[in-house]
């Protein structure tokens, strides 16, 4: 029972992070029907900036302000000047630009800050006794913090989407960009803002996940696997659903924790493969994910 709880907690923690990355992908997909493969590398870059500022004596919390701001600006600019001009052409072009951003940003971070791993400070410092005992299992404060952050991000995002004029426009664009433009919505601006928001969410997720998830340090290759987990979560839930991203992320985190814990046959090294096989099966049965909206084929 204790072991189960421990695994559940670690699964929820990881799952919350996956869900956050999935949310970033969902926000982008809802507006521009694209998967931003460079989302992880944008976040990696801003987290390096945040780390670099801590090296100059900034408080870690304070560094988040410029880091998240940079996340917004970088993603919005990339959308406007790199993605939008090729969107009309075809999906391959968009994918290639995203992959170029992926390699470019990763290389840029390595070029500026070197390829050795960095020790990134924890947002919530923890000591030997920073946990709640839950019937033998330990619920560390930083796990609570991670889950709370997810709740906060989902809450804020739902509020924006459902209660503000901007959110109304974002929902309209997600439903049908052409009809939205006929209503007078500046669709291009909504695209930019959506990408920017995704950049903020992604940057926040990265800052939270680096100390919590293995290897616990900031390194160049770190975000790629996170992106894949996030994408799996988003696909599982349906790429255009906020609820789907959360459910997908949490079930992926918990599921993997259980497989790694109990499924000795699979072993730890193959968990990603298992997750991806699940995805292929889900997509085969429900091509639009569990919560994604159905699209009718017309001639």
């Amino acid at each position, binding site marked *: 029972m204790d072991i189960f709880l421990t695994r559940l907690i670690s699964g929820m923690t990881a799952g919350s992070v996956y869900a956050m990355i999935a949310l970033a992908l969902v926000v982008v997909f809802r507006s521009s029907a*694209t*998967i931003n493969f460079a989302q992880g590398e944008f976040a990696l870059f801003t987290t390096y900036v945040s780390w670099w500022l801590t090296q100059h004596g900034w408080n870690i919390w304070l560094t988040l302000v410029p880091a998240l701001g940079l996340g917004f600006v970088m993603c919005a600019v990339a959308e406007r000047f*790199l993605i939008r*001009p*090729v969107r009309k*052409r075809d*999906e*391959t*072009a968009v*994918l*290639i*630009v995203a*992959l*170029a*951003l*992926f*390699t*470019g*940003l*990763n*290389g*840029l971070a*390595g*070029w500026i800050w*070197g*390829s050795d791993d960095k020790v990134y400070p924890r947002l919530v410092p923890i000591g030997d006794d920073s946990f709640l005992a839950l019937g033998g299992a330990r619920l560390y404060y930083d796990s609570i913090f991670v889950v709370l952050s997810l709740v906060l991000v989902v809450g804020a995002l739902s509020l924006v989407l459902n209660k503000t004029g901007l959110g109304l426009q974002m929902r309209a664009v997600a439903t049908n960009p052409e009809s939205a433009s006929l209503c007078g919505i500046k669709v291009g601006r909504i695209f930019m803002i959506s990408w920017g928001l995704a950049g903020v969410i992604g940057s926040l997720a990265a800052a939270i996940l680096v100390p919590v998830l293995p290897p616990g340090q900031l390194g160049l290759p770190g975000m790629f696997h996170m992106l*894949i987990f996030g*994408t799996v979560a988003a*696909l599982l839930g349906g790429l255009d659903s906020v609820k789907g991203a959360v459910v997908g992320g949490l079930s992926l985190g918990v599921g993997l924790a259980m497989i790694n814990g109990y499924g000795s046959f699979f*072993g730890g*090294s*193959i968990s*990603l*493969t298992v997750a*991806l*096989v699940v*995805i*292929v099966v889900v*997509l*085969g049965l429900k*091509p639009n994910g569990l919560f994604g909206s159905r699209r009718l084929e017309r*001639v």
Partner: protein
Amino acid sequence: MTTVQSPTPTPTPERPARPAARSGPRVVVRGSGAHRAAQAVVLVLLAAVVIWGGSLDPFGQGQLTRAAIFALAIMGLNFTTGYVGLLSVGHSAFLGLGAYTTGILVVNYNQTAISTIPWAMLVCFLVGLLVGIPALRIRGLYLAMVTLALGVAFPEVVARLDGLTGGAEGMTIRRTLLRPPDWSGFTLGEKDAWLYWLTIVLLVVTFVVVRNVISSRYGLAMHAVRQDEVAASASGINVAAIKLVSFGVSGAITGLAGSLFAMYIGSLFAEGSFTVLAGITLLIGLVLGGERTLAGPIIGGLAVVLIPYYTSGIGQGQASAVLFAVVLIAVIFLAPEGVAGGVARLARRWVVVVDKRPESIGRGR
């Protein structure tokens, strides 16, 4: 005599019963003397390059071999991603599968290297068919994700099957096992030259095969599936079959490249050579060279091997990744059809090739 309308992109009047305008591009009929002559010139030039490559120093020749292997791998990718439009990010898995098939057969089962090639292709063809199944229901970026899964899963599976593959430790094929066959006339010391010529021959054969398919009605059907599936099926094209088979053939060609790659590199590390980053490299090579062109994969193979090599000296090595990204984005913006496509577009300003009209047609006019 034949009069033909030049295919300029401008709106064409309903019935332009006029000969090709003199000021426009020169019109060449497919299969005519001029067309044949132009093809011959290109062939002679290519042959010259290949022979020059044969006389290079070992390092330069090794780079060319590597480029040719990647050209083959990209040619495989082009077959399904280019012509049929099934986006694959995970072709690294086929490269790896081909390489490991050759490695395992040579090391564990004592086969000669060259005899493993058909097996590598067969295994990759079958896996390709299997991977093609999701492509029947899923398309575009979703399909890219499924193939990404394949690319990510491959190194993990290899590490898992350590009894067969050496796992994370990798697998080394001893140099003596890669001895050129006796009939080839090459000695063990000339192994690299042998591999160069073997690769070139297989590249040429594959090129011809792909060209035959693409210029046939089967190739037209592949184009048709990519551009409009509904129209394709209404014309009797079995869309599912074309997608599956193209994925299989694509896998087989890339598997062939993988088999050669195993002979070239001699030691296999799934976490090194066959991660999804290699799959991304193949895709980038394809787009850079030019999707749906015959020359594109060759240009792409040269680019993904030579550009990183020549730029690695700049900055601290990481800068080459940045430079590569910049080049890639520049190509996407400036030459959307890749280098080969861009050159072809430029060439169409001067020369256009049109189909030959049968003798019996248009007599009454």
